[in-house]
């Protein structure tokens, strides 16, 4: 692709907006619409936008990730929250929550479901980007 100035400029701004919205969706997911899966798809779409507007090689040097490891890490995280409840004698996958007051954020609800959701988030980002880069690389 030729050096497309307007696309590059807009991408640079838009990617950050999309990524922060995807994080919002991830954290809103417990009691409001949102969640790990949809947030991750949005984050993946931001990165895909980078791949489209710059080229594959440039972004690979910027984000030198090996996506299968994302999948494995996320899976272990998600499984870990399930198993952690077993360690305390509760049935597998039991979720706990607690209200805590943190500096700056004020009172927040801390849940183990959030950790599970972060696991899902990482898995889905890994899956989506792995699929897209695999097909894209094969062409080049």
């Amino acid at each position, binding site marked *: 692709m030729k050096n497309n100035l307007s696309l590059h400029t807009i991408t640079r701004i838009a990617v950050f907006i999309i990524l922060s919205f995807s994080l919002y969706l991830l954290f809103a997911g417990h009691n409001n619409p949102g969640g790990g899966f949809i947030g991750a798809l949005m984050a993946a779409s931001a990165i895909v936008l980078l791949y489209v507007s710059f080229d594959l090689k440039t972004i690979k040097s910027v984000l030198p990730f090996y996506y*299968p490891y994302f*999948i*494995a890490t996320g899976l*272990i995280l998600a*499984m870990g929250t399930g198993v952690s409840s*077993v360690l305390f004698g509760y*049935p*597998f*996958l039991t979720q706990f929550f607690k209200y805590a007051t943190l500096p700056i954020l004020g009172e927040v609800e801390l849940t183990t479901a959030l950790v599970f959701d972060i696991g899902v988030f990482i898995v889905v980002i890994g899956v989506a980007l792995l699929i897209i880069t695999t097909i894209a690389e094969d062409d080049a």
Partner: protein
Amino acid sequence: MSNFLTLPILLPMFIGTILIFLAKKHRIQRVIAGISSIALLIVAIYLAYAVYQSPDQIITLEVGDWSAPFGIVLVADMFATMMVILSSIVGAVCLFFAFKTIHSDREKFYFYPFYFYLLTGVNGAFLTGDIFNLFVFFEVMLISSYVLIVHGGTGYQLRESFKYVVMNMVASAFFLVALAYLYATTGTLNMAHLGERVAELGQEGILNGVAIIFLFVFGAKGALFPLYFWLPKSYYGPPAAISALFGGLLTKVGIYAIIRTFTLIFVHNPSFTHTIILYLAAGTMFFGVLGAVSQFDFKRILSFHIISQVGYMAMGLGVFSPLAIAGAIYYIAHHIIVKSALFLFAGATEKITGTTDLKKMGGLLKTHPWLGWLFFISAMSLAGIPPLSGFFSKFALILSAVQEQEYFIVAVALIVGVLTLFSMMKIFMYAFWREPTIKEEDINKKEMFGLLRPIIPLVVLTIGLGFLAEPIFTYSLGVADQILDPTNYIQAVLGK
């Protein structure tokens, strides 16, 4: 409540995930995979023992502490734990055979992770007590099977796997359709709760419709007549270790689901549903064995035999008496072990002769006597010659059909038995008799014993299942009594 119940599902899933990190180091992968497959077998046996010792012989777990019927339950009864043991045995044996035969390039491309995810799906499907969760575990199993069946990506594999995948995706879509209708009719998806509601509901017409859609779905996955056409060609493509795992295990998950749903949920009108199953079983047996008779390829004959033997299992459900169900369960155990062994023998002969075409082999009995006689034992067991395991299970099935006066199915089963013997003898005569095609100096004794070592436990098991027919059949009868009396299951899950 027993968290131990999740271990047959979680252990392979965890190991599979760990192996993703180690994908490029195939030696460490092998060590971890081998050890954990043995560990899985021990877990499965311990679980079966714990279930057998428990007062109701059922252990349940309400996942996430959500009480049934709102949350997902895992239920281990005797049938489920028996299937978990069988899947772990075959899983371990095929894995050790894979060490000897799988090319190291394939090992690097996530062969072992998907192998363990497949076991996750299979064990999950056996242990779940929620029908939507059954769908999910089916998909876990299927997506791993898609990867494994196309693994290596030869032209033949790609071409035939495409059909396999599309067939299964259509069946999965209909699984969802059936679930939607079932939910609209009964308002629940918990299997125990469904069993209770269906009995109260009295909506025979719509439930018959839903039952037939479920039969279509599981029939497509378990290769029942007339939905078996995808099986022979797609099982021919992948390496022997994978074909053996699939041939032994995957269709049996479909059969397990049929037996589970049609003994627990859809028992409102057996004269309609179970008669259909009986006729489908007859068609499956007969056309499957005819396919086998017409073939001249080691692996293809075995693939067609899977179909005809799925028919025997469905026949047990169709006859629907305690003896018939016990026979079907015994048959499943026998079939999983013997079928995997035979596929592994096909893989071993392929490794030795370089072909699976029977016309190009010959004289293996002279050059490889151990291979020949061990194959002979397994083949005779499959054909149902006493005192091996195939005889007793077929005997129970046919006896129960005679007792229920279903003479039509008896006739079909006996004819199919003869044709099975015929096609097994065909393999034996072509591959093991005749003039040897391999020269003396090409024989590699050490390699052959390496190939045989993983298979020997399966052959020992089939002999054991035959000689220990009495206790094993008593156990099968216990399993049959338990699944034919769903009140026990419903009480254990819903806690009333």
